[in-house]
């Protein structure tokens, strides 16, 4: 890791940039960390949700009365009695006016696992007994599992009650990009490669289940919700709105969270249901979901079908990209449509493609809700685009490495604005690409059934979402009267090591020992407002808020010390828990004396100094809103990832083994290399699952057949190769004061494409669907032999395919060419 920042302190060893052991690990490794299911409150009772066994049905009746006769049962709820009493939700705070979520199905069941009723009892087994007693009468309707079938005029209609602004039928939203002139690019290209690519529906599979304990205090009227979530304020604000109570009466507290990956970045029905029960009973109510419930009713990676085309000039220059995307967002979705916007916008990187033409229909199916998942649409876009790059390079007889070297962003000057509108403040993606290829010995001859593949991507670092015009985080710091520091933040750490990473920033900033810095648990009663932890925003956005708060705290500390020592603040420095006159690091005043002065000896403070040492800082990224043509700089900075896969295919069993894998990343200035490397390794593992094994399997009736860890093929440790070739080539962000870029998701983006390209190199089979299971691999090899061909696209062998279906081919509520920009421009752009 290169050091690019001047040391802010005179003497203390700088912690930012070093692999400080994680403060979180002791509790995790000794089993003392406390997750939501570990919580036991006095008088606590247990709730359970009765979920639909069928995917699509009309609700005739749901009768909870028999449940109340079951021993131990205290209360039961179903949808009908809540209509008009709790408010539907589903919009991302402001812009997207979709109230498609409700605690229970009322008129229709839209997917298997949707809530029908819930029961609360003294024990969770009695609650289960109660659920079994609920009488349910459903009239099953035909399911629609395939997103393309959902577009057919005669397809079963999923959402009947909601009038969409931009769609109709099962089309929930539309998205388009118009940059340059793809038609001209197509006409002038040496080659245009085209293929239909489909991606899989991947689970978040966080080991810590979704769950909560709701604790309503009937005396104060405050509802406290302990929840395994990524965002306390989104949960608080939506929950208060749903229950129609003041936000001051809802407190969200988060215990340790064993991962989320995006699957906990919204409010869920169980949080509302537990709250309702607690308010009705005046007792704490625990509701923790089983793995099967999480599979069926949690959010998943949005599966896509992409009719993608890439135009390339004879010299390898990528001149255009066109795509028609059918984006399966499941039966309902809070975040689903955002995924195709941002995944496509940022998925065009790291190439400054001049002509881009994308249409997307975002469709409902009777499957589990789609949502954010590590990579947020980028792995899907890269899977299509980076395979097209290889296909075009091979058609032109060019080396895929050379083509990428020719195209990746490598400007003479930064910041560099791409035609899509990204403002690239810095990048080392070209060097990353070269280093990754070199690490797997790219030019060496391949053994039989072995192959190598490359893929490059850039991942947004935080994001101004099209439906969420904000990108802020905040930190409050308090220098306690004993010289320790407490950090308050609402951005939940669920694997990102905030307690360590933020403490490194604070320790460097005010010269306090890192062991004296602690992170308070996320609690909406004490933490400043922030959006939460998702979109790889922790280190850059939260880190910047922390840096600003630290600078403000440092200024206050130095002001007091200058007054006491009768020197100018510019003559002072900090370190070793002290403030001292520059050059005299062994003297000075201890921070605890300064803190005590600020609290208990206020006459000794400088004139006009506001007592106590507490500062708060909020950082909102200088990002743009999405333009009507799809362009815009939605992210403050972009981290780079160049991956090189070396695979071996067993031609007898179809097993694809990743024998070697190089990941070279640009994560800007890395605060903690140990943490960042861990993020990359975890990101790779999720990408590996997407590439080779994971998918929701549905039957024709929309029932998930693999809703357990026994049947859902999540990646486990033995499946992951030794990741000894993980490296950073940092190009520090110039937008973020500390130079950081996002780390959490950049390890996932290129993985399916790199493996797909390597599999083609090994076998001549170009996979057009994910995952590349042994079954698909072996059947494809036999099919290739049977046809006697050198190369085969499988299962969609359509080399003569002449272009995506156009957006105009689909029914549209507005005339073609109408301006679809309904965004209000709050900012004065000109």
């Amino acid at each position, binding site marked *: 890791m290169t050091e690019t920042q001047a040391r802010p302190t005179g003497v203390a060893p700088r912690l930012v940039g070093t692999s400080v052991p994680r403060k979180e690990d002791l509790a995790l490794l000794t089993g003392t960390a406390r997750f939501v299911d570990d919580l036991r409150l006095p008088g606590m009772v247990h709730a359970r949700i009765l979920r639909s066994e069928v995917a699509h049905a009309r609700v005739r009746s749901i009768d909870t009365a028999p449940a109340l006769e079951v021993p131990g049962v205290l209360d039961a709820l179903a949808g009908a009695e809540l209509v008009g009493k709790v408010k539907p939700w589903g919009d991302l705070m402001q812009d997207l006016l979709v109230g498609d979520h409700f605690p229970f199905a009322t008129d229709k069941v839209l997917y298997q696992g949707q809530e029908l009723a819930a029961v609360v009892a003294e024990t969770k*087994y009695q609650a*289960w007994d109660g659920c079994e007693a609920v009488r349910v009468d459903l009239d099953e309707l035909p399911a629609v599992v395939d997103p393309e079938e959902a577009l057919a005029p005669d397809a079963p209609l999923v959402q009947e009650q909601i009038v969409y602004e931009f769609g109709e039928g099962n089309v929930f939203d539309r998205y388009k990009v118009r940059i340059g002139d793809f038609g001209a690019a197509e006409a002038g290209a040496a080659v245009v490669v085209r293929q239909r690519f489909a991606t899989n529906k991947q689970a978040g599979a966080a080991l810590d289940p979704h769950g909560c304990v709701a604790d309503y205090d009937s005396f104060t009227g405050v509802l406290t919700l302990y929840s395994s979530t990524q965002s306390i304020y989104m949960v608080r604000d939506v929950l208060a709105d749903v229950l129609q109570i003041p936000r001051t009466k809802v407190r969200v507290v988060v215990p340790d969270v064993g991962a989320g990956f995006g699957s906990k970045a919204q409010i869920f029905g169980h949080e509302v249901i537990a709250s309702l029960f607690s308010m009705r009973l005046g007792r704490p109510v625990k509701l923790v979901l089983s793995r*099967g419930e999480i599979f069926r009713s949690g959010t998943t990676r949005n599966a896509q079908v992409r009719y993608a085309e890439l135009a390339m000039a004879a010299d390898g220059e990528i001149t255009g990209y066109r795509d028609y995307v059918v984006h399966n967002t499941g039966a309902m979705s809070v975040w689903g449509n955002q995924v195709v916007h941002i995944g496509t916008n940022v998925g065009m990187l790291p190439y400054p493609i001049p002509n881009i033409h994308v249409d997307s229909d975002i469709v409902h199916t009777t499957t589990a809700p789609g949502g954010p998942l590590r990579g947020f649409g980028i792995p899907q876009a890269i899977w299509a685009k980076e395979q097209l790059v290889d296909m075009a390079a091979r058609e032109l007889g060019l080396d895929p490495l050379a083509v990428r070297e020719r195209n990746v962003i490598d400007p003479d000057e930064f910041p560099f604005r791409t035609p899509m509108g990204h403002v690239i403040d810095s990048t080392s993606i070209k060097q990353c690409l070269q280093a990754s290829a070199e690490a797997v010995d790219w030019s060496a001859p391949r053994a039989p059934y072995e192959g190598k593949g490359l893929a490059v991507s850039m991942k947004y670092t935080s994001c101004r979402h099209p439906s969420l015009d904000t990108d802020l985080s905040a930190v409050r710091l308090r220098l306690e009267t004993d010289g320790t520091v407490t950090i308050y933040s609402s951005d939940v750490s669920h694997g990102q090591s905030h307690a360590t990473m933020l403490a490194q920033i604070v320790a460097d900033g005010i010269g306090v020992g890192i062991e004296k810095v602690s992170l308070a648990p996320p609690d909406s009663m004490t933490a400043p407002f922030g959006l939460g932890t998702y979109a790889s925003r922790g280190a850059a956005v939260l880190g910047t808020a922390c840096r600003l708060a630290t600078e403000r705290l440092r200024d206050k500390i130095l002001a007091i010390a200058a007054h006491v020592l009768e020197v100018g603040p510019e003559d002072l420095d900090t370190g070793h828990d002290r403030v001292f006159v520059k050059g005299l690091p062994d003297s000075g005043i201890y921070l605890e004396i300064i803190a005590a002065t600020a609290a208990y000896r206020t006459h000794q403070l400088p004139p006009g100094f506001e007592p106590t040492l507490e500062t708060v800082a909020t950082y909102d990224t200088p990002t743009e809103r999405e333009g009507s043509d799809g362009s815009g700089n939605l992210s403050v900075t972009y981290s780079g990832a160049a991956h090189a896969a070396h695979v071996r295919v067993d031609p*007898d*069993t*179809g*097993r694809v083994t990743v024998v070697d894998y190089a990941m070279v990343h640009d994560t800007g200035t890395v605060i903690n290399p140990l943490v960042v490397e861990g993020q990359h390794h975890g990101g790779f593992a999720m990408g590996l699952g997407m590439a080779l*094994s994971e998918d929701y399997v549905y039957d024709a009736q929309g029932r998930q057949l693999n809703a357990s860890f*026994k049947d859902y*093929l999540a990646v*486990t440790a*033995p*499946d992951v190769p030794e990741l000894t070739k993980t490296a950073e080539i940092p190009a520090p962000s110039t937008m973020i004061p500390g130079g950081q870029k996002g780390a959490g998701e950049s390890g996932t983006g290129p993985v399916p494409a790199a493996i797909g390209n390597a599999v083609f190199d090994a076998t001549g089979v170009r996979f057009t669907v994910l995952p590349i299971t*042994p*079954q*698909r691999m*072996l*059947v494809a090899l*036999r099919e290739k032999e049977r046809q006697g061909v050198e190369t085969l696209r499988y299962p969609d062998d359509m080399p003569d395919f002449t272009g995506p279906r156009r957006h105009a081919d689909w029914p549209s509520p507005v005339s073609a060419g109408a301006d679809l920009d309904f965004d209000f421009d709050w900012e004065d752009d000109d």
Partner: protein
Amino acid sequence: MRPFTWLAPDTTEEAVALLREHGSGARVIAGGQSLLLAMKERTVGPSHLVSLGGITGLAGVTTEPDGALVVGAATTYAALTRAALRGWHGVLSDVAGDLADRPVRNRGTIGGALCAADPRFDVPAFAVGVDAVLRISGAGGDRTLPAGEFLLGNGLTAIGQDEILTAVVLPPPATWDAVVFEKFRHRVFDAAIVSATCALRRGSGATPAAVRVTVAGATATPVVLAVDAGATGAHAGEVAAASVLPDATDEPTRYRRELVRTLVRRTVDRARTQQGSA
């Protein structure tokens, strides 16, 4: 899990009597690695559980005078892994040590695997593959059944409601000169998609006197194939693949057929090699 009554008999006779007494609501439990999971999900809800854990002699391995290996039905996979078994009997240790995960191997039993009759489990496939015989005790006395006749379908066996599987008897070492087991699974702890067992008896020349090839996973119960004793691995693989759902063209069946071909070829080739070196 629903409430149930736990019964812990000391003898097989007592256990059989309890099963008779409590009828269809009673289930035998050994390691519980299939039953408990189903009970936790409430997909089964027995009224009584008759535990084999306290019955002396049901766990452990003994050898008959003729060399046959008697493996008590309540012997855990972990115990089998540690057992020092002679000749091809040792393959049972290898099979038991390379399935599921360690917690399952510590509790799960060989008898439980057979009674669960899951087509993807290794022990039933291996038992049929080496032509093991199962000992069953019931109210009407004791009986024996070849493993191939015990397994009737996915989750179905020939055992009566008031009968208990007490032992798995592997034939004497001289029955086979080489036994090879191969399987394919996704992850290391997953059940096999397809497995193949080749048991071979040497002949006077290069051609074996007998070859028994058994394929499991692709069908509801293990299938013993009619393979010519002189067949090469490749030939046996072809014969085996042709016998598995020959009319089906769907991708999962095509794949299983390919795996059958591969695994049979590998087991037969390995068995022939071992025979040569024995």
